[in-house]
């Protein structure tokens, strides 16, 4: 009994030393997952409490971040995501449009003399905004890879998907992120719109699709 109490106490100390320092990182991730500060706080609270209950399952020497992110992702998917009103995420059509507009690598090539302007005028809060606009799976992959430097294998474990899926998602997600930032850059006159597809063309395309849809409904 004494031994057990002692080990409980040890566990507690270990948890404080190993898991608790990740609270800020978990909160940062929770903000990107929920896009809502109150929900993000709740999510972190629930994640760390569950981690505490299952502390005996954490394998010392493995990546604590990956373990905690996995718990947090599980809770998020099962609890929050269901009742969350998905706000302002790019839908499939917008994604296709974006990828289509910036499909050719030339269209996302920044001439070296525009790079400074791009960094100064586009790379700031816009990056987070662009990330928040991505669909959940893409957002999570970028978050784990580029915000938290997890390996593909660790990401696969967090998101419970094959490593190949991580790779293809990351590829598409980074492309989308880039395309989104290039849109900002075009809007702000840092670079010119990729040839052939101007903002006007896209507007026309939208109008055309709306007309078609109306016709189909009549």
């Amino acid at each position: 009994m004494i031994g057990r109490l002692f080990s409980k106490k040890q566990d507690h100390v270990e948890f404080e030393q190993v898991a608790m320092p990740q609270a800020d990182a978990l909160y940062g991730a929770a903000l990107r997952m929920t896009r809502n500060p109150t929900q993000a706080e709740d999510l972190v609270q629930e994640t760390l409490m569950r981690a505490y209950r299952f502390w005996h399952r954490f394998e010392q020497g493995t990546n604590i971040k990956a373990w905690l992110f996995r718990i947090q992702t599980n809770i998020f998917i099962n609890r929050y995501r269901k009742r969350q009103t998905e706000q302002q995420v790019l839908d499939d059509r917008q994604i296709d449009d974006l990828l289509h507009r910036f499909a050719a690598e030339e269209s996302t090539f920044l001439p070296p003399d525009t790079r400074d302007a791009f960094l100064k005028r586009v790379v700031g809060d816009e990056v987070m905004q662009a990330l928040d606009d991505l669909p959940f799976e893409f957002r999570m992959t970028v978050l784990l890879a580029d915000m938290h430097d997890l390996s593909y294998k660790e990401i696969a474990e967090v998101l419970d998907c094959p490593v190949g899926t991580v790779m293809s998602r990351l590829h598409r997600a980074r492309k989308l992120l880039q395309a989104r930032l290039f849109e900002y850059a075009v809007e702000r006159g840092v670079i010119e719109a990729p040839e052939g597809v101007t903002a006007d063309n896209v507007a026309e395309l939208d109008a055309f699709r709306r007309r078609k849809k109306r016709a189909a409904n009549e």
Partner: protein
Amino acid sequence: MSRIDCDDFKKFIDPYLDGEFDDRERADFDTHLAECAACRRHYEQQAWFLRSVRPALQRPTRLPPGARARLEASLRVAQRPARARRLARRLMIPLPALAVAGVVGLGVMPLTGFKPAPMVDDAIEQHCADFPVEFPSPEVAEVDTWFQDKVPFHMQAPAFPGDKVTLLGGRLSRIGGGEAGPSTRPAAYLMYSVGERKMTVLVFDGSDLKIANGEALRAGNKQVHVHDANGYQVALYQRGPLVYAVTSDLPQRDLLNLIGESL
């Protein structure tokens, strides 16, 4: 001579940039990069993009002080000895609602309209048999520890959040069949109560198995294969080397929700 072409290079540029390749793969890409100006330009652009964007993504965020204080308070509460033990003792009264009457014998009846899957049959049989638990405890950690030197695998009992599901305890068991034949393998048998109903879980080493039969469904993050037999649902899923066979007479949706939320 380089073994990859420009399409490969572009397609796999992310793992290359992220240092995910082994030395040999990396060497192929290095070679192509040295030989191909177009890919060099593309690579340089992508590397520059990631270098520029990452600092913006990695700006630190702080958990607000109020939230941190709440978290620390919850941890102090959690540190106190659990009251759960008392609850467990109360729950150890055999579950009358499970009225063995209607169920007995069903497990050994031929399950009509059900493709014989020995493991599934066995799971239902054990579910219906209403074996007593050898080690009563509501604590997943305690049950895991109890199984530690009794089963030849690293036991991880599924834990269900919230208070819908209560762990009653575990017993040592075996599970029969598998595609290979009638051989049996050691298994951990767990019993839970879900409201008035019972749910049993058999956990065993299935690193040599591929779960394929049954209806493939998603439960949260998990890929689950569900067998429906005479009012029972048996949901099989794999977690690392372990296979979990969850049996109950809950509606399928409820069962999948529970499995989805489980850890």
